[in-house]
């Protein structure tokens, strides 16, 4: 890119939606950053989406309200958008475009990084295999998170995705050397209270000074949201691959991001894909989610936990759908479990961690881990089928083994899934709870577990203290609110 062209244009041809079309262009490049001055002298930022035939289409991050055909100035500054980075960014709060938001001066930059990043060379990736203990049974036991994974939370309105993400951030940072851990949090169009909850949670656990926050709140400019995850991930990559930290990046809420993208696409009159979202939504989201991972020869890692709310709890909606096609699994929160007051209300059957297989087992967690998880999935899935059947034919219409499965389902929800907001379970405890549930089934049902592990861990009914744990432990405490 040629250096400092810095030509100022004043011929504005059109303003529509978030777009401004500048005329008489002689020098401008695709993706270039534009400094805009409104007739009132207010400064804004924009980016070139299309350039040619003497025109440039500029997307204005802060919106076009107050811009006019006459009196608006556009300066093309000859480079793409960049984020200044240095170790000083830790503990700081920025706005959705990466400008300080905490009243402190701009950190002194060690370098400037293009917020769009560059695609990691797959040949240079290090395959992620290190287990992250979150202390949450359902995650550690059945949806294991590994360093460098991208594992989103699919939520719905009103469900406790932020509480779960905050618990993960608090508890995951405890394990291992605390010093090389960092949290990058990007609020994308969320309410003030949600961002505040997260900040407080980091503060209380002492992790705030190892965190970087980017806040684009619900009343901040919508188009800015296109940039917020990008600046956040630029900083995350810097912390991980320049400074060697293990970074947990939480992006919430990607639905707001996608809506901003749709707004621009509509203004450009592009042929819409499903539900009006642009056909390139997949590629665009991939450019964000793929910025997670590990690299050969570098110490750090970027682990992403994006959060999105599924419109009308519909997992086939384009945003969760395309996200699921890109990320390495998903944690889906279930409305039914939430109504029952179970926290975390993770619907395990719809959830998945694709990198789990390489993060668990002998030498990493325990040799029976994957078989136990598989059997638990199987048992819970059967229990759900039986539950549905029982609603029609009643308990009397069920066979003996079906009844056992019915109880297993309840035990699973109450003794394994459910836990307190501040409860940090060890992996041993998680697996032990799992075996307790599996041991309530006859040994012959455990077809996914090798005989040697059954011998080692299966608890025969007489050695179990209470066979009726399902009911006993159904204590109602600490519901997510």
């Amino acid at each position: 890119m040629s250096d400092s062209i810095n030509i100022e244009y004043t011929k504005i041809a059109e303003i529509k939606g978030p777009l401004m079309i500048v005329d008489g262009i002689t020098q401008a490049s695709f993706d270039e950053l534009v400094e805009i001055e409104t007739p009132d002298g207010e400064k804004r930022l924009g980016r070139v989406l299309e350039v040619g035939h003497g025109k440039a289409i500029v997307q204005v991050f802060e919106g076009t309200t107050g811009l006019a055909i006459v009196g608006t100035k556009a300066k093309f500054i000859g480079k793409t958008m960049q984020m200044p980075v240095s170790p000083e960014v830790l503990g700081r709060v920025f706005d959705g475009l990466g400008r300080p938001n905490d009243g402190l001066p701009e950190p002194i930059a060690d370098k400037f990084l293009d917020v769009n990043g560059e695609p990691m060379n797959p040949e240079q990736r290090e395959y992620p295999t290190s287990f992250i203990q979150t202390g949450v049974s359902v995650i550690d036991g059945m949806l294991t998170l590994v360093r460098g994974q991208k594992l989103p939370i699919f939520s719905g309105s009103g469900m406790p995705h932020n509480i779960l993400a905050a618990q993960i951030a608090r508890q995951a940072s405890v394990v291992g050397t605390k010093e090389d851990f960092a949290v990058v949090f990007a609020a994308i169009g969320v309410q003030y209270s949600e961002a505040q909850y997260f900040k407080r949670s980091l503060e209380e656990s002492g992790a705030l000074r190892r965190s970087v926050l980017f806040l684009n709140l619900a009343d901040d400019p919508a188009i800015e949201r296109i940039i917020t995850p990008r600046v956040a991930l630029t900083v995350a990559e810097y912390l991980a691959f320049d400074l060697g930290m293990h970074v947990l990046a939480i992006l919430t809420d990607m639905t707001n991001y996608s809506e901003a993208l749709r707004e621009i696409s509509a203004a450009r009159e592009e042929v819409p894909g499903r539900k009006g979202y642009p056909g390139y939504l997949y590629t665009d989201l991939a450019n964000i989610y793929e910025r997670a991972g590990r690299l050969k020869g570098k110490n750090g890692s970027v682990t992403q936990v994006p959060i999105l709310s599924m419109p009308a709890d519909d997992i086939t909606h384009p945003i969760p759908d395309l996200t699921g096609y890109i990320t390495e699994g998903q944690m889906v929160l279930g409305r039914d479990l939430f109504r029952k007051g179970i926290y975390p209300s993770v619907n395990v059957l719809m959830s998945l961690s694709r990198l789990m297989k390489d993060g668990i087992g002998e030498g990493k967690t325990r040799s029976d881990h994957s078989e136990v998880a598989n059997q638990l999935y199987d048992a819970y899935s059967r229990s759900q089928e039986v539950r549905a059947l029982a609603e029609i034919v009643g308990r009397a219409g069920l066979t003996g083994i079906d009844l056992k499965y019915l109880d297993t389902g309840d035990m699973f929800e109450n003794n394994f899934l459910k836990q307190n907001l501040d409860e940090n379970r060890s992996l041993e405890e998680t697996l032990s709870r799992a075996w307790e549930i599996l041991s309530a089934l006859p040994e012959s049902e455990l077809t996914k577990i090798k005989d040697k592990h059954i011998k080692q861990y299966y608890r025969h009914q007489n050695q179990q203290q209470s066979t009726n744990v399902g009911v006993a432990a159904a204590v109602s405490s600490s519901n997510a609110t």
Partner: protein
Amino acid sequence: MVAKGRIIWVSGPAVKADGMSTVKMYETVEVGDSKLVGEVIRLTGDTAFIQVYESTSGLRPGESVTGTGQPLSVLLGPGIIGKIYDGIQRPLGEIAQKSGSYIGRGVHTDPVDMKKKYHFQPLVRKSDSVGSGSVIGSVEETPLLNHSIMVPPDFKNGTIVDVISEGDYDIEQVVATLETSDGKIPLKMYHKWPVRKPRPYTERYDPTVPLITGQRVIDTYFPIAKGGTGAIPGGFGTGKTVTLHQIAKWADSKVVVYIGCGERGNEMTEVLVEFPHLIDPRSNRPLMERTVLVANTSNMPVAAREASIYTGVTLAEYYRDMGLDVVLVADSTSRWAEALREMSGRLEEMPAEEGYPSYLASRLAEFYERAGRVKALGSPNRTGSVTLVGAVSPSGADFTEPVTTHTIRFIKTFWALDTRLAYSRHYPSINWMNSYSGYLEDVSKWWKESVSSEWYDLRAYSYNLLQREDTLKEIVRLLGPESLPDEEKLILEVARMIKIGILQQNSFDKVDTYSSPEKQLKLVKLIVNYHKEAQKALKEGITLADIRTMPIIPSILKAKFEITDEDIAKLDQLDKQMHEQFEKIVNQGVKLIV
């Protein structure tokens, strides 16, 4: 003669340039000061519409565009196997040496090592007359692969006037000289071929030999033939990639081309990390020695995603021409279709269904048409095959969307992945009611001759049980299992055994990951025999509860991972024990009744 023009417009991967009247359609061009690679996809007057294979960030009107005179081509010669390429055959390993952890722009590198020496063995002599496509020599590309050096298929027939003696040479070395009506032409160990042009062959044969993948639901229930086509559609997380990885690992082919088209970076890394350590059961060599990867991940430029499919299939055809069986898996063809859609949108073409261009169907047809079992051009006689398997990622897991519906028209094996099965952790989640294979009859002869004459009937018997269960499940859903007579309850029970003991296969278990055809057959036989015995026992008055709780059942269900291929005789023992246990309960039961 080369076109030299100027950029007049940039929007994402699409660029317009004028002054391009001499450029050809589909010619590759160098775009801008940093010489990005692009391809001409439309010409209007002297304006060329170009899709750029690299990020266009920072590109500006006024920068130059230069034609190369060449269509988008790949280099074909020794050194391809074991590599990972991007969508236009740039080696990612070598690119990393130049641009580090991230993929830089405008990096140009040879697709293969031009300096590496191979031991060349001439297979023609001076004054031999050879036709186009004929083998003139061979080199060992990897310990697993003898690479035939062939006269390029677009050369005329001629006479060898000179051939080099056996020895170690790099691939730039002229190894023979061919005299044709056009004069003397030097032949090197490599040539180039345009990716959008299928490589010619002499004759096509029907695919009749199954591609053995070691995956029970595929080989036994929905087989694919060598040279055939298959599609595996499914919503996210249903197991497309895992299944394609399994095929790439265990299929009995000589060469595997794995195309990661718009998918995850880590999935490519996984192949790169795993395959060098996995040992091919037939040759005892690392799988990487027969594998080549084409990787254009979801965050890499979208235009190169479109090209990656053609790059991959051209590499596959090249090895096919050596007389080898090649499997190509493409994950995912939907991302390729989306790349088409995106370029079409930028061209402002009239969209057909869901914004896809009207030529989506014909492009899909052209791609799958490049599969086949063929007699290669020239001498000696060689039969090779390209088997094409494409993943399809329907939006919202809805199989009525355009990419799925059009793909179905051009493929013969259909493995329908089912989100509900995946949720219940039935993996691979191939739905046995919705899937089909058009090769079933064709490959049954092979099974009969190579494994057992019982295969066809056992398969049909067990599949019939699954079909009956499917109908019975409806009744159970309304009235509960107790409403069925014992005969039918037994069917539910045995269907469950087929599902757990045969259809479900854990790719991540050392033993379960691959089942030999013999093992597959014995497992099916075991459960079919169980059903026959259990039916008899019911007739003898034994209760279903007694049959259901026979201690042998868990052993039958776990045989898939507890019994290895080496210990396959244990399956016969298990069969024997089962018969004995039935005998026992029947005798006891009869005694009780008397």
